[in-house]
């Protein structure tokens, strides 16, 4: 048992750290720190900087242009990224679709799509959830009917994150109504510019158009856009969902959030002294920090098992639940910390290029918006209820 990084891992950490110090534009890290909305161009810029270094796809094998890092190296990289307030790497092409194509895609698909993901030629979004298929994903009803050399797709997807920026969408579609619902699903790649596709933004409770509905009305999709075999899409979708996700606990985000919370609690005055000296408030922070310290190690235990080649199964569910609870509580306490200045609706001040000064201290503007927005953490990617069911079945065998 040794809780420290090896010398090699330390050297890697230092390398990442100095790269970020040198290459991460302060314009971007400032926006992340303030909780401002990043534009499409911001994301693309940061992806390009990482890609130039060969670090955009840490999880991809080298033969596909990735960095080929193991789970510990990826953890170190993600940890340093959040510490430096770097924009997160968007997961749709890199973490979600990429591994599926590498495992199940045709050679042509790999050669065509993977470099385009790295170079930022395609912006992918995810077409999984539907109005009637959320936690119960296998009940997807969007259909794809084979007609010669193409499919005709009809239906609706929803909660499509940043779909407004995307030119490509990977979808779960129903190609058969025979057998169990899971057995008639296929994995299809669809050009968002195809005739018959409509995107409608959904405004979330923080006022931001982060997610979308995507409608398909007789959309023609060439058969070569099918990934793997017809009616095997559920296997690929599950691979994507359970594919080892070292960042699922969000330890880096939690650490950054806790630091921010402490900074605010030091700056805020309550009854003539810093809020952080209020024993009741300090106790709430302390309980979170204690929980986070233990969770970080749980995370590392899973990470190092993964690095040794053991794919985590239901452990990811555990990390997801604990991680999201901690992050949501940090957001709630941050909202509490800013006091009455949590009340102004600050959407405009958080927009890109806004020269509007926030009402109250600068750290107050994003507190409520982030609290509201991060209620999603326990809902998306398999709700925490679904994760608990996985744990009770897969680990407890109940």
């Amino acid at each position, binding site marked *: 048992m040794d809780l420290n990084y090896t010398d090699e891992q330390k050297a890697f950490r230092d390398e990442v750290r100095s790269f970020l110090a040198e290459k991460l534009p302060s314009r971007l890290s400032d926006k992340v720190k303030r909780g401002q909305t990043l534009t499409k161009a911001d994301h693309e810029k940061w992806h390009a900087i990482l890609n130039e270094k060969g670090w955009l796809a840490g999880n991809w094998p080298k033969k596909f242009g990735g960095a080929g890092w193991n789970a510990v190296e990826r953890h170190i990289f993600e940890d340093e990224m959040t510490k430096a307030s770097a924009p997160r790497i968007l997961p749709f092409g890199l973490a979600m679709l990429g591994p599926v194509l590498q495992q199940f895609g045709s050679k042509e698909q790999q050669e065509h799509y993977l470099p385009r993901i790295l170079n930022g030629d395609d912006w992918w979004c995810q077409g999984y*959830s539907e109005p*009637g298929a*959320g*936690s*119960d994903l296998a*009940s997807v009803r969007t259909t794809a009917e084979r007609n010669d050399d193409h499919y005709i797709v009809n239906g609706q997807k*929803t*909660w499509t994150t940043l779909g407004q920026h995307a030119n490509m969408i990977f979808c779960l579609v129903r190609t058969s109504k025979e057998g169990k619902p899971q057995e008639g699903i296929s994995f299809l790649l669809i050009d968002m510019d195809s005739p018959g596709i409509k995107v409608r933004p*959904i*405004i*979330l*409770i923080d*006022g931001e158009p982060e*997610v979308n509905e995507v409608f398909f009305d007789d959309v023609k999709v060439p058969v070569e856009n099918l990934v793997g075999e017809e009616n095997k899409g559920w296997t690929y979708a599950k691979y994507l969902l359970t594919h080892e996700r070292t960042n699922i606990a969000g330890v880096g985000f939690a650490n950054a959030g806790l630091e921010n919370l402490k900074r605010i609690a030091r700056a*805020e*005055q*309550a*009854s*003539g002294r810093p*809020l952080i000296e*209020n024993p*009741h*408030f300090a106790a*709430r922070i302390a309980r979170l920090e204690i929980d986070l310290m233990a969770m970080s190690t749980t995370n590392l235990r899973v990470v190092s098992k993964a690095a040794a080649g053991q794919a985590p199964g239901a452990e990811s569910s555990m990390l997801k639940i604990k991680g999201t609870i901690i992050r*949501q509580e940090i957001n*709630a306490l941050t*909202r*509490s910390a800013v*006091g*009455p*200045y*949590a*009340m*102004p*609706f*600050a959407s405009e001040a958080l927009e890109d290029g806004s020269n509007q000064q926030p*009402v*109250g201290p600068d750290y107050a503007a994003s507190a*409520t918006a982030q*609290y*509201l927005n991060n*209620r*999603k953490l*326990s*809902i*998306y990617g398999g*709700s*925490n*209820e679904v994760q*608990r069911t996985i744990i009770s079945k897969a680990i407890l065998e109940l």
Partner: protein
Amino acid sequence: MNFELTEERQMLQDGLRRFLRDTYTPALRAELTEAESGFSADVWNGLAEMGVIGALFSEDDGGFAGAGFDIALVFEELGRVGAVDPLLDTAILGGGLIAALGNDDQKQMIADTIAGTTQLAFAHSEPSSRYDMSRVETNATRDGDSHVLNGRKSVVVNAPAADHILVSARSSGDAAAKSGISLFLVPADAPAMSLRSYPLVSGGRAAEVLLEDVKLGADALIGPEGAAYDEITRIHARATLAISAEALGLMESIRELTTDYLKTRKQFGKPIGKFQALQHRMADVLIEIEQARSAVINLAGHVDEPTDIRDKHVSATKNLIGNVAKLVAEESIQMHGGIGMTDEYELGHLAKRLIMVDHRFGDAIHHLERFIALAVA
């Protein structure tokens, strides 16, 4: 012991519930996001005509009720529809302070308030006061017979629509001293007073109020110079009751929405309300809302008691409401899933308004500490 409403209160509740249910339509909600004042003048006039504003004042002050249970009743109904009308600011705070401290001339304004023709706001909190009621750094100096105010007031709800703003300012003493706080009635168009107006997460609007050598006549002083603190605390207790009752109404509507959703939303071939994991959590939500109802009743019954008894109940109720509000809002969003995250669905506004309750008149932690000082330690 009797927990039934009197006949008069029952009538008021029935009438108000009907009025608000018919009024707070999706069309009105859309209109409100555009409204410059943050609320609808038509709804306000309707409330005044029904006598809802008068129900918040005693007969001595020209109203017809004004007890704790009247406040609780009115605000619970407002909460049920997520109403954004500034009754709390105009009637409970502004009107309440004038009724408590004003001279006969100043009290004329109460009649206009009850009639619905005057809007008020109370500018008390400051950028560094947080929830500390005695921390007033805005200062009032004498210049002959007139008073000169300088300072900054923060998150003054309804200030953008107010005809008059009641401003607390320090005539003497240290920044946090209870004595030395005076109250002034400042016309909205007073030169040297400027507002930065903005929308609130909960709906409605507020402003940062900047006072730069605001010169006021002797008649602007409300009550005795330097001795407004006790009445400010008393009115804050009534405001805390109002916002707690509003939170209760919000909780009830959120519970109904969520229960309906659990019954209708199907996943895995059955309504999600058939899953025991959700049933038990919803049962806990129900239990906590009943706790919230009792806490509101406790405060309503003690809001006119002597200070020590009253304030113990203020802090007990506001602490409990703050904790239950968080639970109800978060659980309802979670049990709804994605749809609970959308601005379009009714839950969004109700949940945000409920969460924001903790940021006015002291949050759960503030009142926990205050309760310890008043009742435990």
